[in-house]
C-alpha cells in the first residue's frame, strides 16, 4: 500500500511539466500547427524562470514572489517564441517540421548559452515549495496524494477542465477547431485563419514556457543543460496519444509519469534486475498503448501541418 502511494505521490508532480506542455501543444495542433519546437520553448522558459530568483538571491533569502515573477517571464518568453514561430510558419509558410526542429535547437542552444554566461555552473534556487491545502491535506491517503503539492500542480490540473471549456464551449475554441480542420471553410465564413493560428501559437508557446519553468523552479530547483530531457517531444507524442482531447492527454501524461515513478520505485527496492530495462519501461508502455489504441480519423485536425493560402486553388 505504501509502495503504491509512494509511486502515485511521486508520479503526480512529475507529470505536471508534461501536462502543461502538451496542453499547449494541443492548442497549436488543434489550430493546424505542428510545433516540434516545444522542447526549445520549454528550455527558454526553464532558464528564464529560474534566472530572476537566482539573480535576486545570489545565495541570500529570496522573497517568494520573485519565483512568480520568473514564471511570468517564462510565460512571456514562451508567447514571444510562439509569435516568432508564427511568423516563420504562418506568415512565410515554412515547412512546419523543419521550422520546429530549428526552434528546438534555437531554444535549447540559447538557453544553454545564456546559462553559461549568467550563471556558469550548477546553482540551485529555493524555488517554489510544497503548499499543503489546509484541512484537505489531512485526509488520510488522499491528502498526501492530491492536496500536498506545490501550487503549480493544482493549477496544472485545473487547466485540464479549463482547456476543455475553452476549446469546446467558447467562440475562440470553435474557431481554433475550425481553422485546424478546414481552414478554407473558416475563411469563407469570415474568420481570419492566420490570426487565430497566431493566437493559438502564442497560447501554446506560453504554456510551453511555463512547463519549462516548472521544471527549473518546482521540480529540479536548478537549471542545467538538458533539463528538459526530451519532454517537449514527449508532449508532442502525448497530443496524438490523447487524440487532441485535454482529458485524454492528462491520462497519457499520468500514465507516462506513473510508469516512470514505478521504475524508480522498483530500482529503490534493490531487486537484482538490470535497471536499464526499468528505465525503458515508460517508453515501451507508450509505444504499446499507441500501437493498440483505436485509430480515429475524424477527431484529429485534418489540416495539421498545412499552411493556409487563400489564393492557391485546392
Amino acid at each position, binding site marked *: 500500500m505504501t509502495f503504491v502511494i509512494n509511486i502515485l505521490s511521486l508520479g503526480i508532480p512529475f507529470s505536471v511539466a508534461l501536462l502543461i506542455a502538451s496542453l499547449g501543444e494541443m492548442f497549436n495542433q488543434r489550430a493546424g500547427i505542428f510545433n516540434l519546437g516545444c522542447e526549445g520553448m520549454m528550455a527558454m522558459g526553464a532558464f528564464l524562470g529560474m534566472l530572476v530568483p537566482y539573480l535576486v538571491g545570489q545565495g541570500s533569502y529570496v522573497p517568494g514572489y520573485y519565483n512568480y515573477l520568473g514564471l511570468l517571464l517564462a510565460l512571456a518568453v514562451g508567447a514571444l517564441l510562439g509569435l516568432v514561430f508564427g511568423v516563420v510558419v504562418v506568415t512565410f509558410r515554412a515547412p512546419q517540421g523543419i521550422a520546429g526542429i530549428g526552434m528546438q535547437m534555437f531554444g535549447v542552444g540559447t538557453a544553454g548559452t545564456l546559462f553559461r554566461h549568467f550563471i556558469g555552473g550548477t546553482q540551485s534556487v529555493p524555488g517554489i515549495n510544497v503548499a499543503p491545502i489546509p484541512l484537505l491535506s489531512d485526509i488520510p491517503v488522499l491528502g498526501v496524494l492530491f492536496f500536498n503539492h506545490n501550487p503549480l500542480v493544482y493549477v496544472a490540473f485545473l487547466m485540464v477542465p479549463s482547456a476543455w471549456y475553452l476549446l469546446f464551449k467558447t467562440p475562440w475554441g470553435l474557431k481554433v477547431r475550425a481553422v485546424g480542420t478546414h481552414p478554407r471553410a473558416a475563411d469563407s465564413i469570415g474568420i481570419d485563419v492566420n490570426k487565430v493560428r497566431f493566437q493559438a501559437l502564442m497560447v501554446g508557446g506560453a504554456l510551453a514556457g511555463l512547463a519549462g519553468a516548472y521544471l527549473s523552479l518546482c521540480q529540479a530547483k536548478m537549471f542545467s543543460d538538458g533539463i528538459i530531457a526530451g519532454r517537449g517531444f514527449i508532449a508532442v507524442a502525448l497530443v496524438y496519444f490523447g487524440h487532441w482531447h485535454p482529458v485524454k492527454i492528462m491520462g497519457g501524461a499520468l500514465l507516462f509519469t506513473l510508469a516512470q515513478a514505478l521504475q524508480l520505485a522498483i530500482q529503490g527496492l534493490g531487486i537484482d534486475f538490470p535497471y536499464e530495462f526499468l528505465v525503458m519501461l515508460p517508453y515501451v508502455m507508450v509505444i504499446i498503448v499507441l500501437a493498440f489504441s483505436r485509430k480515429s480519423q475524424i477527431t484529429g485536425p485534418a489540416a495539421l501541418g498545412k499552411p493556409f493560402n487563400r*489564393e492557391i486553388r485546392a
Partner: protein
Amino acid sequence: MEITRKAIDSLRIEHITKRFPGVLACDDISLEIKKGEVLALVGENGAGKTTLMNILMGLYHPDEGSMFINGEKVHFRSPNDAFAYGIGMVHQQYMLVPNLTVLENIALGYKKAWNPLKLNLQMVRDRIDEISAHYGLSVDPDAYIWQLSVGEQQRVELVKTLCLGAEFLILDEPTSALTPQETDELIALLKKMSSELSIIFISHKLQEVKDLSSRVAILRHGKVVFQGNTIDHSSSDIAALMTGHEVNLPQNDAPACTLGPMLQIRNLKVKSDRGFLALDDLSLYVCKGEIVGLAGVSGNGQKELAEAINGLRKVESGEIVFDGVDIANFTPKQVIDCGMGYVPEERNTEGIVPSFSIKENLVLKDVESEKFSNRTFLKNSVIQKNGEDLRTQFDIRSPNIDIAAGSLSGGNIQKVILAREISRNPKFLVAVYPTRGLDMGAAEFIHKQLLQKRNEGVGILLISEELEEITNLSDQVAVIFKGKIQKVIPASEASRRRLGILMAGVEDDEQI
C-alpha cells in the same frame, strides 16, 4: 448586422480583372443584377465564374475594377464585408468543417452568438429553427457533418448562408454533386426562394438555367460574351455561345453487340471501408463492344465495384472473369497487364499524380515498358513525343506538356487520364463518373471517345449518376442498389422515371 443594413436594390461590377500566375481568370468583366432577379452564370470550366464570385464575396481581391451596391462604390476586404451587405455564397466544394456539428458550423459565422466566455448555442439553434421553418428546409442541428450525405450537406450550406442573413445568394454549381431527385427538389426550392431573394447561380446544366433563371450571362475565357433574358434563348443557343461552337452530345445508336462476353462478374462479395458488405452477391456481364451503364445513387457500391475489378479492393468471394481469366484479387499491376483500363472516380488523387508533369502522367502505367525505358533510364525523347501527340489528339489545353498535371482544369485532367488509358489500347474500360463537374464541351469530347472505343470492340462499364449520360451512351443499363444489381434493362427502355424508381430500390418497377 441586420440593423445597419440596407436592402440591395442593385449590385453592379465594372471592369473586374483578376490575374493568377500565368492565368487571366477574369478579363474586364462588367455585370449587373437587380433585386429579385435570378442570374445564371454559365461557362465552361476555367471560364472564371468561380473566381468572379469569390471576388464578390471578398475572398479574392480584384487587380482592377470596382463594385457598386445601390450605386455606391464598395470594397470588400473579407467575407465579413460581404455578409454585412447580406451577400452569401454556397461554394461548389462545401465549406463545412466535417468534425463539427451542423450547429457549430453555423455558429462559426453567427457572430451575434459569440459571447467571449461562452458560445450561445441556444441562440444559434433558435435561428436555425426560424430559417428552417420559413423556407421548409429541415436540418438536424446536432448531426456531425461527416455523417451527412452530400444532399444533406448542401441543405446545411443553404441554411447556414440564410442564417447569416443572406438576401443575395450566390450558388456555385449547386447541383453538381446531387442525385437527380435531389436536384429536382433543390430547383423547386430555389424557385420558391427566388420570390424573396436575389440569386446568382453558376451552372453547366442548361436545363436548370432554363428552369430557374430570369437572366443569363455567359463567360468564356474570363470574358462576358453574352448577356440576355433567359426566356429569349434556347438551350442549344446558350450551349453554342458557351463553348463557342455547336454542341451535340453524341448518342449511342449503333446496334447492340454480338461479339461475346468480355467481363463476367459472378456472385461478387466485397467489403466497404467500414467493414460491411458493400457488394453483396453482385453479378454483371459486359460484352465486347458494349457499354453497360451502371446507374444508382452514389454510395450503393459503385466505388467498391470499380476498385474490386481493378485490384484495389479485396474480393471476399465470387469471381471476376475477364476475357477468360478470373482476375479477382489480382494485384493492380496484373489487372492492368490483362488489358484493363480505368478512369477512377477521384481524378485528382487517383487518376493522376498532380505534381508530375502532363507527359509523365501520360506514361505512368508504362514507364517500365520497352517503349518508354530501357529498364535503367527513361527514354525522354519518346516520352516527350508521346506527350505531344496525345496532347494534340485529345485536345488537352495547356501551354506545354511539362507543367504539373494538377494545375490543369478538371476537364483537361480528365482528358489526360482518358488519353493515357485509351492510348494503351485496353480490352476493357471502367469509367467512373467520367464527366462529373465537366462542362459540356469537355463532356461531349469524352462521350465521343468512349463511343468510338465501343465501336472498336472495347467493352465499357460506365458508372455515372447523370442519367442522361447513361441513357445516351449505354447499350444496357444496370441499376445498382445496396450492393446488388436491381435490374438490367436495354437503354431504349430506360426512361428517367423508370430508372429513378429502380434507383430508389423498388424492384418491380413495371407495376408502377
